[in-house]
């Protein structure tokens, strides 16, 4: 499977995702933000970091970059798009995913391991997880508080477009286990066609048991399935 990781000035999880993709046998290319042509890709990843310093608003400037026009075109043709952390913020800024990521409820950067539940496993990204499987993933963000309007939130729930929800170690989804204040504990969502996934937790940080655990591996192997 061919993957492309878009590198913006200020991206800082680009190497991490590339390492994870290569470890799991993707043929990966790094694409500099000034490029205007995307190589043929089955998967495009928008990595974590602080694209363009996240000045103005997280992901706002990256959403206007040259290469993003190509990413939007590819997305509309059905290419798989994965936005992690800053990548999720960029996806909401481009409108490829609805809603917005506000500042965390405690108004502080939050870097820690959290538990999330794979709510929807009937899609390209999560088919190797069991439904409602609980994963321990790492988060590291200042703006991860997912917000959207009531109508869209209802649609997300009813049409099963939520990928991951923050929960306790035993799967309880409640305010106590909501690290950043996201509506309905949302940690990741799909677009309607489910070819685009945006998520705040970092699956690429969970592919090596010596470092953490391997809870992120199945997200990548699902794509190869």
């Amino acid at each position, binding site marked *: 499977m061919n993957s492309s990781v878009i590198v913006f*000035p*200020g991206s*800082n*999880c680009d*190497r*991490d995702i590339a*390492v*994870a993709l290569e470890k799991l046998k993707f043929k990966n290319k790094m694409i500099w933000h*000034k490029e205007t042509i995307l190589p043929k890709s089955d998967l495009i990843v928008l990595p*974590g*970091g*602080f694209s*363009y*310093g*996240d*000045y103005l608003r997280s992901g706002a400037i990256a959403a206007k970059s040259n290469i993003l026009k190509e990413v939007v075109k590819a997305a509309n043709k059905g290419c798989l798009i994965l936005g992690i952390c800053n990548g999720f913020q960029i996806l909401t800024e481009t409108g490829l995913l609805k809603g917005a990521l506000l500042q965390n409820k405690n108004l*502080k*950067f*939050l*870097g*820690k391991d959290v538990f999330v539940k794979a709510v929807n496993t009937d899609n390209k990204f999560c088919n190797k997880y069991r439904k409602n499987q609980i994963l321990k993933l*790492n988060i*590291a963000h*200042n703006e991860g508080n997912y917000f959207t309007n009531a109508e869209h939130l209802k649609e997300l729930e009813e049409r099963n477009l939520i990928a991951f929800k923050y929960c306790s170690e035993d799967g309880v989804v409640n305010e106590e286990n909501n690290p950043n204040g996201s509506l309905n504990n949302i940690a990741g969502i799909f677009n309607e066609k489910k070819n685009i996934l945006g998520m705040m937790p*970092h699956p*690429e*940080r969970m592919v*090596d048991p*010596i*470092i*953490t655990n391997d809870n992120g591996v199945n997200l990548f192997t699902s794509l190869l399935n």
Partner: protein
Amino acid sequence: MKISNVIVERHGLKLDEYSKIKELLKREPNLLELGIFSAMWNEHCSYKSSRVHLKTLPVKGKAVIQGPGENAGVIDIGDEDAIIFKIESHNHPSFIEPYQGAATGVGGILRDVFTMGARPIALLNSLHFGSPDNSKTKSLLNGVVSGIGGYGNCIGVPTVSGETKFNSSYNENILVNAMAVGLAKKDKIFYSKAKGVDKSVVYVGSKTGRDGIHGASMASAEFDENSEEKKPTVQVGDPFTEKLLLEACLELMKDNSIISIQDMGAAGLTSSSVEMASKGELGIELNLEKVPCREENMSPYEMMLSESQERMLIILEDNKEKDAKEIFEKWDLAFVVIGKTTNTNNLTLKYKNEIVGEIPIDSLATKAPVYKREWIKTKLPEIESRLKDLKKIKLDEALIKILSSPNQSNKSWVTNQYDQMVMCDTVQQSGSNAAIIRIHNQEKSVALTVDSSANYCNAHPLTGGKQIVCESWRNLISVGAKPIAITNCLNFGNPEDPIVMGQFAECVMGIKEACEFLDYPVVSGNVSFYNGTNKKNIYPTPVIGVVGLIYHSKNKINHLLKKENNIILQIGKTFGHLHQSVFFDEIHSMRDGPPPEINLANEKNNGETILKLLDKKMLSSVHDVSAGGLLLALAEMSISSNYGLKIEKPKTLFNLIEYFFGEDQGRYIIEVESSNIDNVKKILKENNVFSEIIATVQKDNFEIIGEFKMHVKDLCTANNKWYNNY
């Protein structure tokens, strides 16, 4: 403009120093030249009070590639790899403007490391705040922690370890020390020494603004009630630009274009150009109208003294300009040739074709003043408080009180504001004895930690100096690492006060003695004097940052209890030394008497024996016994693992408070499976290491037989509440 005495003093120079300047120049300096002398001769840049003492430190060793004197120290970690690391203070700016002060402290130390060709792989910090009930502490804590996180998180280097301490001696002068650790190839290390005449001097990075003018001079003076007015001397950080600068520099370093490279840190363009020329015994000529400026009409004086961040000076090989420029343009960074090396041995400053300043390089560097300041030996303090005269307290009550005190509380409120995982090589995060970072794509790891013991150093600097070195050594041993080398950040009060100078001299002696004995060289460091306000000096606070090596990452060990019925042994002897202990401080507010003594031979033998046991995979967990003594160390092991412990009382006649809270040095706690216990005991005996069985691992309950029993959850609750309620 005629230079008056007032102008000289405003530049932080003494009148006799000014006379020396005139002597060296054989004329009066102009204002620009005076500014340059003040920037180079201040304490922060010249080490004029500390140099004679620092020279005594051991700086050589098998693993040392580069000791003090460069941007950072370099050590060999085997194969093709080198670790480049240094710690530096940003105390004064952080007190005035906590977010930016702390952030630019991180930015500055990162540049010191990547300017030598290393990709930064970890950040650490040591923070000392005033008493929590001091009105300024809360906002300083908030600002500093978010500033440190803000910079490291954005540039994408994990902040993996640190310490956050509170003590009223820092009420008006906090300490913010940041350490950066980078990884380079041994044969690709870049130095600041210029070579060759007529080579292009290139300015890269951010544009120069009016921020931070005279920052280094500010850092070389005490605070007073007007310190708030110094806010404009604090620099503003831009981690995004630093990330671009980092990537651009590392890209340029892949090829052989660079003769020498130096970051513009304290005293900006002045110190970087002088440093390069001085080391190369050359002259340097700068055309200041070419300096990229952020603001209009900047004078040569402002350009030379600005401490704008995220800038570097590079001397390039011939014919490499075009390729180098392309790299910096790709990253949208300024790249301008602003001068050249010369054979004049002068710093020559031109502005619009006119010479506006000319100073012999050696007068700024090698001929800068060096002082042998007067100093007084600190006597071993008398003992005033005796346990038998103090109000009795139960063991469990004291433990809970200590666990919930600001200094001993769980620090996740702080560390959760740091990205500890970016780069995906963090084997062990903060909250353990030392952080462990894997060398990318390899089996080996480095272990990293920072330590300080201001209470001990204040009571007796010589012992305190030895103690911190030993404590850092124990912390590395406790994660299974072979200690390699140290960097130090020496935070002290006013060196013109013989008592303070004595604290400095004796701390350095203590550090020297311990480092020599442990074969643990000092490869880089920084001195921060004048920490105090209105003649009130801070506690002497040397901070030690250390690097150790773990050959196989999968052999990592931590202090989490692993299995029910495992046996707990104490390594090293307990004598029950309570003076200068956490117990006396937190429970009785007593800070009299001497700190615990250090026995270097025991330290070395105990540590090396533990490494032998780890090599044979005979231990399940290891923890060092430090501040708070045995009981706090045992409680920490329970809290972090959720296992309980059944602890025995000492078999000999011992006061239980002294036994459980005494801070005797050179001790560890090890967890051993019962099937290994005979072998472990045998090896300990063969190596003449004192040990005794003190506890067994059990579920849920933390207890001392015959004294108290409580659920581990209650320990966690006590340990977790302070920050969240502050």
